[in-house]
Structures are given as C-alpha cells and as structure tokens.
C-alpha cells in the first residue's frame, strides 16, 4: 500500500508537534533562561550572560558545592546501576526465553509487573524493608544472627538499598526488550550449532549475543540516561542522606527551582547536566561504533 505524501505528513504531525512543544521549545526556552537572573515568581530579572554557569563551575560557592555533590552522587549511581540493570535483565530474559511457552507469558508478566508500580509505592515498600530499627530485612538477618546493619543511614549500604529497589522496580522493562530481541534470533543457527556440539556458553557467545547486540547497546544507553534521572527513590527512601550522599543532581535542581526560586541557576544546572549526559552517551556510542 502506498501512502500519499499528505497522509504521511498528517501521520507524522502529532509526533512533530509534541516533539516541538515538549522538547524543542522547553530546551530553547531553558537555554534562554539559563543566561538570565530569573525568579520562578518574579520572572526575568535581566540578562546575566554566563554568570550562572561561572557560579556553578567555580568551586567553593553554594551552587557549585551543591552541583558537584549532586553530579558526583549521580555518577556513582550510574556506575553501580547500569551493569546490574542490563546484565540481570538479560539473564532474566534468557531464563524466561528458555522455559516452555505456556509458562513464558506468566513469568514475563510476573517480572514486568513491578515496572507498573509507582515510585512512591516502591519507595514506601523498600523504606519499610530496609529500615534499620526493626525493618523486615533486619528482622530476618537478626533471626539468623547476621547483625542489623543501618541500611539507610550508612554508606555504602544506603546505595545498596536504593540499587536493590531500582533493580526490582525497573528490571522488567529491559527484560521485555531483551525477550523481544531473543525472539528474533534465527533458530536455525541454534540447530546448526547443536549439530556442531556447541555448549550453552558457545551458543550464547557466538549466536545469541551477536544477534541481540544492537538491542544490548541501545538498552545500555537508555539505562545510563534513566540512571542519570535518579530522583524519586533517593528523595523518598533516604531523603538524600546520609549527609547528602544520595542527593542526586535532579534533587539539587529541584531544590534550586522550588526552594530558592532561582530558575536561571537551575536552568544552567540542567543544561550542564544535559551536556554531561550527552558526553557520556556519545562516548558510549562512539566506542561501540569504533569497535564495530
């Protein structure tokens, strides 16, 4: 069927309008605001050039302290979360893919359903589980004589608790994409490999992984972006503590906007955050591209 040019444009239009309204316009407007002294209530207080950026990037002042601390914490979370979020979801996808078809739908739903839970509910559950004073995890550990760590008030335990909550919450999304990719792998290759006597690891290394590599790279990139957007879990489970060690960059930006009313500074922080994300994602992309 051939779609006319007009229909193509009409079908494409909703995306174009939304993309422009919700991405291009806010981005350009945000960039404009970042060069101004701008109060959320008082509006534009005048052009300040690069002053907001200079304040953020010059160490020692209140904005740079908050920004660098938030960036450091966010990078820590990205570093510790991306591997488990990708590897565990791949492992789950391989397990679910290998079980009989009748059970596949059931387990796919079971593992995906946590993704449908709101961050508020997830955080409430995990806060209760990891509470140091009589939380469920500590009660179980105490029963087996394993001590009662202060999960939410000591590091690195606070990060571990947030990581476990995040993995449980979001693993289903990555897993579904991996399962879809695994469904596309040519079964004839496995049959041929079986005839050649290939074991599980050889089949995975030489057939499965190369076939799903595109999805793997894509998921790694979107997981990095998702981890950069850490906000709800740290806000609700640890409130950014202990000692601001889980205060993410988005929490800092939110505080600058809604507590300090400083939209100009917060916009500059957002631009810098976006720049760091682009650098990391571009590095990932070019590394993969160069290797190929």
């Amino acid at each position, binding site marked *: 069927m051939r779609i006319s040019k007009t229909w193509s*444009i009409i079908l494409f*239009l909703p995306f174009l309008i939304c993309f422009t309204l919700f991405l291009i316009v806010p981005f350009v407007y945000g960039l404009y605001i970042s060069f101004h002294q701008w109060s959320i209530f*008082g509006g534009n207080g005048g052009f300040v050039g690069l002053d907001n950026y200079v304040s953020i990037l010059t160490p020692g002042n209140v904005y740079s302290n908050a920004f660098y601390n938030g960036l450091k914490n966010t990078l820590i979370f990205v570093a510790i979360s991306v591997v488990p979020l990708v590897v565990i979801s791949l492992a789950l996808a391989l397990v679910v893919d290998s079980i009989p078809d009748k059970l596949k739908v059931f387990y796919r739903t079971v593992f995906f359903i946590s993704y449908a839970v709101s961050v508020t509910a997830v955080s409430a559950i995990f806060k209760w589980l990891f509470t140091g*004073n009589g939380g469920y995890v500590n009660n179980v550990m105490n029963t087996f004589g394993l001590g009662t760590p202060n999960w*939410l008030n000591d590091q690195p335990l606070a990060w571990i608790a947030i990581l476990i909550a995040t993995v449980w919450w979001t693993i289903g999304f990555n897993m579904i994409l991996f399962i879809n990719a695994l469904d596309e792998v040519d079964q004839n290759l496995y049959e041929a490999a079986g005839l050649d006597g290939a074991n599980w690891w050889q089949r995975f290394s030489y057939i499965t992984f190369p076939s799903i590599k595109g999805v793997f790279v894509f998921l790694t990139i979107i997981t990095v972006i998702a981890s950069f957007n850490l906000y709800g879990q740290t806000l609700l489970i640890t*409130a950014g503590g*202990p000692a601001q060690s889980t205060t993410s960059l988005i929490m800092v930006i939110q*505080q600058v906007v809604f*507590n*300090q009313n400083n939209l100009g500074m917060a916009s500059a922080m957002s631009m810098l955050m976006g720049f760091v994300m682009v650098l990391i994602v571009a590095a990932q992309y070019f590394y993969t591209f160069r290797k190929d």
Partner: protein
Amino acid sequence: MKNFLLYLAIISVLILSGCGGGSGSGETADGKIELTFINGFTGGDGDYMKKITNGFNESQDKYVIKESQEKDHYTKFKTGNYDLVMIHTDLLETFKQDGMIQDISSLMETAGISPDDFHPVAKEQVTFDDGVFALPLDIHPMTMFYNKKLAPEAPQTYEDFAKLTTTLQQQDPNLFATGVPSAGLGEWFIMTVAAQNGINMVEDNHVNFSQEELADALMIYHDMIFKDKISPQGLGLDGEFQAFMKQVDEGGSAVQTATALTGPWYYQAVKEAYGDDLGIASVPVIAEQPGVYGAGHTLALPSSVTDEERMAGLAEFLKYMYTPENLINWADSGQAPTHIPTMELVEADPEKYPLSAQNIKQFESFEGAPKLYQYREQVRYVVENVYPKVVGDANITKETLMSELKKATEQAKQVAETAPQ
C-alpha cells in the same frame, strides 16, 4: 494544502489550550464567587480545616471557598493562581522578599481582626517593618509524647532522662528513654538546644552557626547517644517517632523508646497506638533553661490578588474562620491556635483538647525561626551534613564540629546574599 494548514492550526490551538497553567478562579454555576485556598494539610488535620471551609460555604450565598489540600502545596502555589495560601512561619520572610505575598492589614481590618487578637509570639512572627504579611493560625512546637507504661511520669530534665534510661535498661536492653534522630526533625533538635542555651543564632542577615556555645550545645545530643545511652544509635530519618511506635520483642532487632520529642502532626497516630497510655508533656530542659523550637501555620494573601470583590470575599471567610466557635475545630485536630479568644476556649477545656492545651503552655518558651531570607536553605548544610555527624559519629571532636559549623555559616552567608536587592 490550504485545508492542511487549517487543520494544523486547529490542532496546534487545541494542544496549546491544554497547556494553560494555573488553577484559575471564577464563578460557580449558581453564580457564587469562587475563592481558591491552597494549603498543605494532608494529614489528620486536613479534615478539620475542611470542616471550617465547608461550614463557611454552607453559610454563604455569595462566596464559595474552593480548598486544595496538597502535599507539595508550595510548588503548586508558585506555579498556579490562588486567592489564599497557607505559609509556614519560617518561609514568610522569603515569600515576602520574593514578592509572592502582600500586606494583609487592610483585609484583616475589613474582617474585623486585629494583630492584637493573637498571642504575642504569633503576632511577632507575622509583623514586619513594612506591614503585617500573614494571619497566624497556630504554632506547632516540638512536643513530647510519652508511653505511660514505660514512663509513668514525664521526664522534665536531662537527669530524668538518664534515670529513666537506667530503669528501662534493667527491664530490656532494647528500651531507651528517648530517641534522637539523624534526619527529619534535625533543624528542630538543633534550634531547641540553641534556645535552651540562650544562643543568638542570627548575625546580620544570616544564621551564624560558628559559635563555641552552639558546638557545646550540640554535643549534648552526642552525649545522649554515645555517653549516657539515653537514645539508641543510628535511628535515621524520623527515628524519634518510629522508635516510639515500635514494640520490642524478646530477641528482636528493634529498639523502643519511652518518649518522643517530635512534631504534633503525629498526634493522631500516637493516640491510635497508645490510647489511654499516651502522655503529652512539654519538651524537657536538657540544657540551661526552658526553650522549644518549632514552626507555625499562617494564612497569607498572594500578591496577585487585587480585585476588590475577591478581597471582600476573603474578608468574609477570615471573619467566619476567626470566630472562636469555628476556629476551635482547628484545636480539635491537635493544632494549637494562636488566636487569643480561641486559646481561651481550649484552656477552658484541656480534657477535650489535650495536645492543643499542652502546646499553648509551651508558647511562653517558644522560639520560632528567625526572619531571614531563604532561612530553610541557610540551615540546609548544618541540618543535612553537620547534625548527622554529631549524632552519628561516636568520635567527633569539638574541633571537627567547629570547622563544619564555620563551613555551614559560610554557606548561610552566601544564601543570604541571594536576596533580591
């Protein structure tokens, strides 16, 4: 192509019209003028405020109050359009300097309310050099709840806490006199001990933490945990309340406290848990003199409200609300009203309003937040970084603490400098 462009224009208008922000205020279907009131009363007290606004709406044929109770009501207020807003006392200076609220004196006059109708502490909180910027509603100081089964008498001094700990520890090593949390009410713990030591926390336009006396005062909490074992270690976020609500099982991992120095908003929860075994008392003197910190709710007039008709409606509402028989609903929720005629009703029946009556007694030693621009941001570093070290690091020294307090003061100074010129 012409039709196509027309469709494009219609779609764009439809989408853009959906992007319009703000709550907006107007008229109801039956011609009443709708006035929007936003607050953060999402706890047990919300129902009692609803009782007041519903009562007003039923009494009216000209105005109607549309009340929004939102958890994050400040964000909504800043990005929306409202006629009346609840603001905590510690934020009034910031909201005033940022031009978000206006002098409410003329509205009060129309409503027949005078600043002298309020307790002097409350009056002082809303009165500025350039006018009165809010109507006081209540003061919620730090409160002490105690479990009568574990503590038959309310502790009144540090020594009482120490004695209670000795008694409880003989019963069970998981029982403690009280809980010092590392996060949540940190600001209240810091400022309460500062008030009890008579420390002036303000220098010029910022909070001055860099004082030897404050370091000594904060070390009291350190000693309560690590030296005298009055509080368990590592209680974490809102730990003073969580530990009070725990029931210790033999061999369990939980610790329980006999008292909680906490916020009055937990009243409904503790009442439900303890019933007749719940005791309510003033905060003990753990330092030199009586003193207690806390905050208060006020009602402020957004700068955007200028229409005379709306002002008249708001005056009607305030007149209704600040009638003692109506405002007493607020005391019923556990809050302590600062409106003197309503306070008198509470004091006349302390059995019916136990928490409210107890907290009114604390007004005399109450120390509110200083009137500083971005006060909450000024105290952020000390609350989130310094205080957790005091109550979490067994080996912290006064030298280390002083160096952190200097850093906190420097940050407070920088935040103060961001004030509009």
